[in-house]
């Protein structure tokens, strides 16, 4: 009788343990799934913010392309800029400012910070090479300035369809060696003058080559540490279509990106505790 009683107690305890185990499993599963729900809610909020940011990136890129007059893309390790120099003053700043007002009026909790005004300044990452327009977008000049040296070298290829380039070999011969600045002037074939300022000798250093057969292309190689600034200018102000390829030679496999320095998109979805700040990437 005693033995039977012990057995019954054992069975009861076993059943109790099994029940507790099942209940514990259910509670653990419940907590786990609650965590998934919380995490997926946060990630959904990030996705919603990303949706807004993605729209802003596309719109800003189109404003840069249509109003700034510069078509920008990234191809492999090259940032490619297509534009017509001397095409006249652009309404880029006004268009960007209007878009900012529209965005902030019609999209709650979204703010577009524009880092600079008075011309389109772009930055090629990760080498921090500034691609600027000293006389404003639509002006006669493109200036490329290397801001840091986290690259082995970068190459600039400037194409002018129709053979409007000067013969750069002749120009290079007139330069006094020794400076760190290189100016390249791209002009129409009607006036085959050329000008370099500074004392960096691209010819002796072997940094500059030109396709003298078609006169359509200049290639400039800037090694790290030489701080070569490159100016491409339509000196006759007659309008020259230029395609500039900036190819980075860097040790990492980081793909180049073109951003507007100091410009940010902030999406604040406070209901979800999510604030997304992204730089304005145009390519």
């Amino acid at each position, binding site marked *: 009788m005693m033995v039977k009683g012990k057995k019954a107690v054992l069975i009861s305890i076993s059943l109790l343990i099994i029940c507790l185990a099942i209940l514990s499993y259910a509670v653990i599963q419940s907590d786990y799934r609650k965590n998934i729900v919380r995490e997926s809610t946060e990630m959904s909020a990030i996705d919603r913010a990303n*949706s*807004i940011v993605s*729209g802003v990136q*596309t*719109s800003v890129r189109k404003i840069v392309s249509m*109003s700034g007059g510069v078509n920008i893309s990234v191809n492999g390790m090259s940032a490619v800029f297509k534009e017509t120099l001397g095409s006249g003053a652009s309404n880029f700043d006004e268009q960007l400012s209007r*878009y900012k007002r529209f965005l902030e009026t019609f*999209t709650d909790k979204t703010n577009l910070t524009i880092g600079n005004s008075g011309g389109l300044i772009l930055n090629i990452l990760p080498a921090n090479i500034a691609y600027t327009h000293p006389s404003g977008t639509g002006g006669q000049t493109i200036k490329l300035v290397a801001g840091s040296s986290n690259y082995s070298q970068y190459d600039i290829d400037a194409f002018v369809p129709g053979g409007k380039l000067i013969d750069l070999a002749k120009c290079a011969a007139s330069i006094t060696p020794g400076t760190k600045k290189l100016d390249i002037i791209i002009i129409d074939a009607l006036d085959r003058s050329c000008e370099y300022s500074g004392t960096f000798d691209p010819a002796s250093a072997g940094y500059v080559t030109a396709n003298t057969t078609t006169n359509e292309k200049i290639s400039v190689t800037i090694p790290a540490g030489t701080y070569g600034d490159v100016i491409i200018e339509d000196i006759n102000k007659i309008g020259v279509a230029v395609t500039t390829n900036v190819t980075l030679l860097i040790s990492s496999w980081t793909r180049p990106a073109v951003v507007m320095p100091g410009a940010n998109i902030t999406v604040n979805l406070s209901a979800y505790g999510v604030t997304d700040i992204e730089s304005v990437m145009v390519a």
Partner: protein
Amino acid sequence: MSRKGYVLTLDITIALMIVLGVLFLSAIIINNAQTGTFLEMQQVRLANDIITVLDERGTLQSLNSSLINSTIQEILPSTFDISMTIKTYDYDIGSQNFIYKNRTKVSGVTNETDRFIGQGKRTFVKFSGTGVANYSVLEYNVWVK
């Protein structure tokens, strides 16, 4: 002896009720926690990708609901459906304000379900020459058919 059997049956019944109760409670706890999965996130991401394609292609800028709808059906996986509303505004230079112009509605091929509906918002611009012709705000719903 017959009383013993009665007590034993009652004992087993109560024990079974407790066990079944625990199992039932566990099932309820697990089921209640089963809302919100990564599939729902995928819906929003998918819709975001589709809208980005439409924006990049310039389809959205046409503000043509049948063109937008047919393009969506081309690229949207068949298990999902999307509806969207686009509100378009013109910029009035005189008052420097945005004036409401029109609304474009794009309906899905099925009715929205009572399941999870992912939502999102996006802005886009349409160009005329070198200036923005109009500004649009797009709101979308995405769901599993």
